[in-house]
């Protein structure tokens, strides 16, 4: 028997998993979100055109801003890919946030406790970040696959626990000697080099692009990816075909966590260098939106992450230009996700027509 929880995933499956949907859909979703957003902006007493102009200028107005937008997209790209891996196997990983924290934590350990030559240190630190996320998410993966726990609750709860662990560590054992509640900074040798001199754009972009390519290869060109997608679409059929469903489910969750952990590690090695409380502004949650707007395709995720990164970057200019609080950007993000989901459903089922038969 299929459990109710795995059945509900059919809802996700039924949005087409990227195959049948038009690539223009996200564009429409974004446009409509901006249109509706403008009503809200006007309602809040600002001029939407000015606001959007400022948003646009603030995101890509000059080379430095483009670089910033890219930098902000990097964690979203990696975390978004993480979501894709899990969702393709029908695992709802809402635990990206906690996995990002764990990845960052492991990366900081590697970057501060190990002292290795450049060229060796950085890869090890990034790999440690993946290990952190991998281990942290293997727990809910196991609880789901072997004990039938609802992974949504478990991952949500584990987010809180991860944040608390990091908070405890930067207050206590890992606190930098001196004044602040923060960890030491990672060694220079553990940092991602800047790839565009004069900007903040670091090598993490290349890491994210490589991760996208690898994720694509993994999903569509390896037997593991075939197993993963098979479990995602139909676990029973997968079991019948000889796939070890429990193992693949745990693995999907853990690999997803590894990518989220990498997002944390790249942010440490590329931008923040040290761990503080409140290290992530909620990438783990934004990543869900990124993955879905990217239609659960690695390439789509890259573009969606760029879009969200640009929103984040441009938001500040919008605030200074028209005096709207930054949360307006969240309005647009939320609307984009909703319209994207509506659009996907409409494309899949047709509008107002009875759905196709699913016997």
């Amino acid at each position: 028997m299929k459990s109710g929880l795995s059945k509900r995933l059919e809802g996700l499956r039924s949005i087409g998993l990227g195959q049948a949907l038009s690539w223009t859909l996200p564009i429409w979703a974004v446009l409509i979100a901006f249109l509706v957003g403008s009503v809200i902006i006007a309602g809040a007493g600002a001029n939407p055109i000015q606001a959007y102009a400022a948003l646009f200028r603030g995101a890509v107005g000059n080379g430095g801003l483009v670089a910033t937008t890219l930098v902000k997209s990097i964690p979203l790209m990696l975390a978004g890919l993480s979501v894709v891996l899990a969702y393709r196997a029908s695992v709802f990983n809402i635990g990206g946030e906690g996995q990002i924290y764990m990845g960052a934590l492991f990366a900081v350990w590697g970057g501060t406790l190990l002292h290795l030559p450049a060229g060796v240190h950085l890869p090890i630190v990034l790999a440690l970040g993946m290990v952190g996320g991998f281990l942290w998410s293997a727990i809910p993966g196991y609880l789901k696959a072997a004990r039938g726990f609802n992974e949504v609750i478990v991952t949500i709860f584990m987010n809180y626990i991860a944040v608390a662990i990091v908070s405890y560590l930067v207050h206590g054992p890992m606190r930098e000697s001196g004044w602040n509640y923060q960890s030491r900074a990672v060694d220079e040798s553990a940092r991602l080099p800047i790839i565009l001199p004069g900007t903040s754009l670091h090598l993490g972009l290349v890491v994210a692009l490589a991760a996208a390519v690898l994720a694509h290869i993994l999903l569509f060109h390896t037997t593991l990816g075939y197993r993963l997608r098979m479990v995602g679409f139909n676990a029973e059929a997968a079991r019948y075909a000889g796939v070890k469903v429990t193992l693949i489910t745990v693995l999907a969750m853990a690999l997803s966590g590894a990518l989220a952990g990498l997002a944390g590690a790249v942010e440490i090695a590329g931008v923040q260098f040290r761990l503080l409380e409140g290290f992530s502004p909620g990438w783990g949650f934004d990543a869900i939106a990124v993955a879905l707007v990217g239609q659960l395709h690695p390439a789509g995720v890259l573009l969606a992450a760029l879009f969200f990164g640009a929103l984040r970057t441009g938001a500040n200019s919008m605030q200074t230009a028209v005096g709207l609080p930054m949360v307006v950007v969240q309005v647009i993000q939320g609307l984009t996700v909703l319209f994207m989901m509506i659009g996907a459903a409409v494309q899949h089922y047709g509008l107002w027509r009875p759905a196709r038969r699913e016997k």
Partner: protein
Amino acid sequence: GGGAAPAPTEAPAAPKLKIAMLTSGSVTDEGWNQTAYDGLLALKAEGYEVANTENVAQADQASIIENYVNQGFTVIVGHGFEYGDALTASATAHPDVHFIQIGGIATGDNLASYVFKSGEGGYVAGVLASYLSKSGKWGFVGAVEIPTIKADQLAYEMALQQANPDASVVAAYTGSWVDIPKAKEAALAQISAGVDVILANGDNANVGAIQAAKEKGDVIVIGWTRDQSHLAPDNVALSIVQRVDVILMNAVADIEAGKFKGGNYELGFKEGIEDISKFGPMVPEEAQAAVKQAVEDLKANKIALPPVQ
């Protein structure tokens, strides 16, 4: 350099400074962030062009600073210890811009940090509390444990130890800057454990703690950062006031006078940067005098505060 240099539209005459401020929380928090924002508004009233970004995530600090610099802002204020790295990096990258950190210790040629003398406020609060508490049980409610808050918690406890070795302080943190209901609940928990004086030091958390005291009637709260008596005039005995506006005014004046120097400045009662509000009606003369004396002692460096941990 942030790519293409901005085209500063400076008038040939002495240009008015453009001042931008970053806060990690919301500027409606009745505490740390709102106080800073009030300071910024004071500058605005003086005719300066000001801008601010609130709820700044750690990951966004650098880019927002960069953005302001690109927009031609010449003074950038990072309000909190967590801006240390971002301000240090930007200060190096933009030697012609002035950077200010409040509540931290980052320094640079063009980066000055101002930190409240750790523990002074907590000590004064402790002295007052020792007069107001009947039960000998004192409470401390914070949101998230950060250096400034912790330092004041310790000084508060020290004042207590001196006044009454048998009394005890319990501290509670809610773990969230915005969870006011939980802060209220934490205060209620302390009150039910017999606490009758609470020092509230956690931005939004204060609002919750003060409401708990108000609800319970005879519990006293000492507010923090700004005068919080309006939240519960019958319960707020005193607020320790942090004059961010003065810091900013002074710094801006220094900049305009060409006297601005990077470095780390500790400021307290002596410098007029920390202050006490007016007393609530429940504070007896004797206690008022003791508090004023404590302030004087601090100004005269007569009190050895616990070292920052």
